[in-house]
C-alpha cells in the first residue's frame, strides 16, 4: 500500500479534478445568478475543441487557451441569448448546448483534419514547474507535482469565491439568483448580471475542456470529456451551491477516480467496472447519510420578465 499512496497519486488526483473544478465554478456562478446550466458538458467540449484548433492553426498553445475562451464566449453567449434574453426554458436551452457542442465538435474534426475521431497532436501547454516552492520543507514535494497552470486553476477557485461572497458584484449576482424581482426593485440590472454570469460559466467550462485537450493531452477527440460536465454539476449540487464544499467534492471525485484507476495496477482481483462506479455510489451514500437537504438559490430556473 505504501507504494500505492504516492506523491503522484496526489498529482493524478489533481489532474483528474481540475477539469471538473473549472466547469463546476462556471455552473456555480451561473446557478447562483439564477440560471440553470446543465450544458457544461457541451461547453467543455467546445472549449477543448477551440483550444486544439487555435493551437493547431497558430502553433502557439497559449493562443490555444485564447481559442478556448473564445468558444466559451460563444457557447455561453448562445445560452445567455436563449435562456436570459429570450427567456427560454433554461433546462432545455442548456440541453441544446450539450447536443450542439458534442455534435459540432465531432463533425468538424473530419472537416478540418480530414480524419475521423481524433485530431493529430497539436502544440500543448508546457508544464512549467513552480519557482522555488518545491524546495519548501513538508509540502514542497507535493507542490512539486503541480505545474503553473494547475496553480492558476486553483487560484480561480479562490477568485470566484472572493468575488461571489465578498464583493458588491457577488452580492448583486447572488441577489439575482435569490429573487430577481427583489434585485430588480433594488435597481440591479438582473438581465445584464445573468447574461454576464452565463457567459462567464461558458468560459470557465471551456477552460476546463482546454485543460483536458492541451494541458493534460495534446489532441481533441470526439466526446473526450466523458461526462465530466455532468459530474461538475453533481459536485455543485452536492456542495450545496457553495464554492468551498463543491471544490472539495471535486477533489473527492478526482481522488476516487485516481484510486479506481491505479488500484488495478496492484491487484487483478478487482471488478474494475464496479470500481469506476464507486465515486458515484460513495457520493450517494454521503448524500443519504450526512449531507442532507440541499436546495439551490430560491429563484434559480425562473426566467425574469418585467412589464
Amino acid at each position, binding site marked *: 500500500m505504501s507504494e500505492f499512496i504516492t506523491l503522484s497519486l496526489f498529482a493524478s488526483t489533481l*489532474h*483528474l479534478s481540475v477539469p471538473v473544478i473549472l466547469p463546476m465554478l462556471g455552473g456555480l456562478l451561473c446557478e447562483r445568478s439564477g440560471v440553470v446550466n446543465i450544458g457544461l458538458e457541451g461547453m467543455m467540449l467546445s472549449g477543448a475543441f477551440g483550444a486544439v484548433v487555435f493551437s493547431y492553426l497558430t502553433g502557439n498553445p497559449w493562443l490555444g487557451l485564447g481559442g478556448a475562451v473564445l468558444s466559451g464566449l460563444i457557447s455561453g453567449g448562445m445560452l445567455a441569448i436563449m435562456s436570459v434574453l429570450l427567456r427560454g426554458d433554461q433546462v432545455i436551452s442548456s440541453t441544446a448546448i450539450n447536443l450542439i457542442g458534442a455534435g459540432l465538435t465531432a463533425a468538424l474534426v473530419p472537416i478540418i483534419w480530414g480524419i475521423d475521431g481524433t485530431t493529430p497532436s497539436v502544440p500543448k501547454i508546457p508544464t512549467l514547474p513552480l519557482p522555488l516552492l518545491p524546495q519548501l520543507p513538508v509540502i514542497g514535494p507535493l507542490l512539486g507535482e503541480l505545474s503553473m497552470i494547475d496553480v492558476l486553476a486553483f487560484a480561480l477557485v479562490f477568485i470566484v469565491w472572493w468575488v461571489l461572497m465578498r464583493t458588491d458584484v457577488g452580492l448583486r449576482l447572488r441577489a439575482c439568483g435569490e429573487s430577481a424581482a427583489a434585485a430588480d426593485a433594488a435597481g440591479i440590472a438582473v438581465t445584464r448580471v445573468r447574461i454576464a454570469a452565463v457567459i462567464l460559466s461558458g468560459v470557465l467550462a471551456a477552460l476546463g475542456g482546454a485543460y483536458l485537450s492541451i494541458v*493534460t493531452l495534446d489532441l481533441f*477527440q470526439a466526446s473526450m470529456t466523458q461526462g465530466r460536465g455532468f459530474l461538475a454539476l453533481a459536485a455543485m449540487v452536492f456542495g450545496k451551491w457553495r464554492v468551498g464544499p463543491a471544490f472539495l467534492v471535486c477533489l473527492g471525485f478526482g481522488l476516487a477516480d485516481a484510486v479506481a484507476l491505479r488500484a488495478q495496477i496492484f491487484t487483478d482481483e478487482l471488478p474494475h467496472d464496479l470500481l469506476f462506479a464507486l465515486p458515484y455510489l460513495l457520493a450517494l451514500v454521503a448524500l443519504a447519510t450526512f449531507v442532507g437537504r440541499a436546495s439551490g438559490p430560491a429563484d434559480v430556473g425562473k426566467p425574469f420578465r418585467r412589464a
Partner: protein
Amino acid sequence: GDAPIWTMITDQNGLGDHGFNDLAKLGLDKSVEAFGGRAQVIQSTDQSQFVPNLLQAVAGGSTMVVGVGSLLNDALTEVASSRPDAHFTLIDAVSTDDDGTPLLNVASVTFREQEAAFLAGIVAAMTSKTGHIGFVGGMETPPVVRFLAGYKAGVATIDPKIKVSHAFVGSFRDPAKAKVLAEGMFDSDVDVIMDVAGGGGRGIYDAIIAEGADHWVIAADTCKGHLAPNNFLTSAVKDVAGAVFYENKAVHEGTFEGGPQSLGLAEGAVGLCADNIDTLPAEILAKVDAAKNKITSGEVTPPDTYEALDAFVPAQL
C-alpha cells in the same frame, strides 16, 4: 456488369479508432484500387441502426458488405439469412443461424490476436530492465482479453518472475484517464506498456513521451510508431485490411466461399509491426522467430481467455 460497390458498416465507435474500423476502410480502398468501383462507409450512430444500415447497403447493390466488429453479429446474421444472394464479411465474430450452422454467404473472419500478443510479450519481457511490465486496455472486451492473455503468456515464456500489471480505462475514448493510468504504471517503475485502449490510447503515448528514454510502448492492431517515435517498441498487428481485401478479391473473382475463418500467424494475418522490426536486437528476434515456429507448428497455443491463461504452462523456446 456495372462497377462494384464495396461497403462497410461500423459499430457505434466508428472510424478514427486507429483500430480495425480504420483498417477495414484501408482494405476497401485497396479493393477499389485493384478492382475499381467505389468504397462506401456507413457509420452507425447506435446499435439499433445496424439492421437498417446493412439492409440499406444491400439495397444499394453492394458487391460486398463488410460488418466490422462483433457487435454486428446478430444484425448481420439476421440480414444475411434474409438475403442469401448477397455477400457479407463479418470481422471478429462468427455468424451462425439459430442452430449453430454457419451461414454460407457470410465470411466470418476472426483473428488469433493472442498469437501476435504472445510475440509482443516476448519482446516486452526481453526489453524490460525493471522486470515490471504494463498492459492498458480500454474496456474488458474479448479481443482485448485475447491480447492480454497472449501477452502475459509470452512474457511468462521468457521469464515467469516478470510482473505484468494490467488495467482498464473503462472507456475506449478517455485519453485523459489512460494517461493517468500510464503515469501510475511508470511510478511503480513499469518500463514497457502495451496499449490496447483504442482511441483513448493516445494518452499513453503522451505520457511516455514525457517519461522519455528507456520507456517503451507496444501498440495493438496497427503500427503507431509516428505517435512516439523514440519510445515505440513494436506492435501486435492484425491484418484486417488484408482480410477484407482477400474476401473482396474472392467475390470479384467468383471464388467466394463463406463460413468461419480463423486467421493467425500461420495465415500471416497477425504478427509484429513490420515497420521497425529490424531495429529490434538480434537475440529478441531469434526468440520471436522460435516462438513463431512453435505456434505455427502447434507446439505452443497462446491462451485466448483468462481460463486458458491460468492453465497455460510456459514451454521452452
